């Protein structure tokens, strides 16, 4: 069955450093991979989507890579700030939206 793992349940980094979160999957060939941010008691907020034929995508301080051979996506936040502290979720999706599934999330804490 499909399985998604995110590298760690929690990650602490110092302000100003680059945060790197990992999403690994097995038994899946997704057409799309998405990243979301979720704050406590709130719904997830869509950040970035990357297609299977794309290697990298950037948006402001965010960068996502997608390696379909390794079955892995990396999510980077450069020049991290305490306001970046949240849980980050990756999600996989098939061509027509089938088999849409979220990973368990990584709770990022950026320490001042």
């Amino acid at each position, binding site marked *: 069955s499909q399985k998604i793992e995110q590298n760690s349940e929690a990650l602490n980094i110092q302000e100003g450093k680059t945060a790197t979160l990992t999403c690994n999957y097995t038994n899946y060939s997704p*057409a799309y991979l998405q990243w979301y941010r979720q704050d406590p*008691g709130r*719904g*997830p907020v869509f950040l970035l989507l990357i*297609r299977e034929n794309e290697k990298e995508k950037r948006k402001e301080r965010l960068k996502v890579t997608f390696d379909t051979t390794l079955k892995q996506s990396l999510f980077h936040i450069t020049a991290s700030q305490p306001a970046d502290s949240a849980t980050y979720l990756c999600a996989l999706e098939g*061509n027509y*939206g*089938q088999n849409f599934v*979220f990973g368990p*999330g990584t709770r990022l804490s950026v320490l001042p």
Partner: protein
Amino acid sequence: SQTIHQWPATLVQPVGSPLSLECTVEGTSNPNLYWYRQAAGRGLQLLFYSVGIGQISSEVPQNLSASRPQDRQFILSSKKLLLSDSGFYLCAWTRQQGGGGYTFGSGTRLTVV
């Protein structure tokens, strides 16, 4: 612009009581609509999705049901709540199936006592 409304924000209900959570989307037509549940410290579990009025697909057989009486309205219901129904319920929509980001509502925290 598109917005999604979900209510109530919090709800405390006794075991065996009925449930009705409502979600509406504004600023778009024919959205794909979803109900998710997130248990404390757990991931998001898809409960139901709908691609059109009256079309409901269930992902997990359980004590809950969903209905879509209007294009932009999605309702989650239960006739008799169980303790295990407690959780954070989220409504979401997307314009297209495949390649579109999901927009989530603010959620309903349900506690069954």
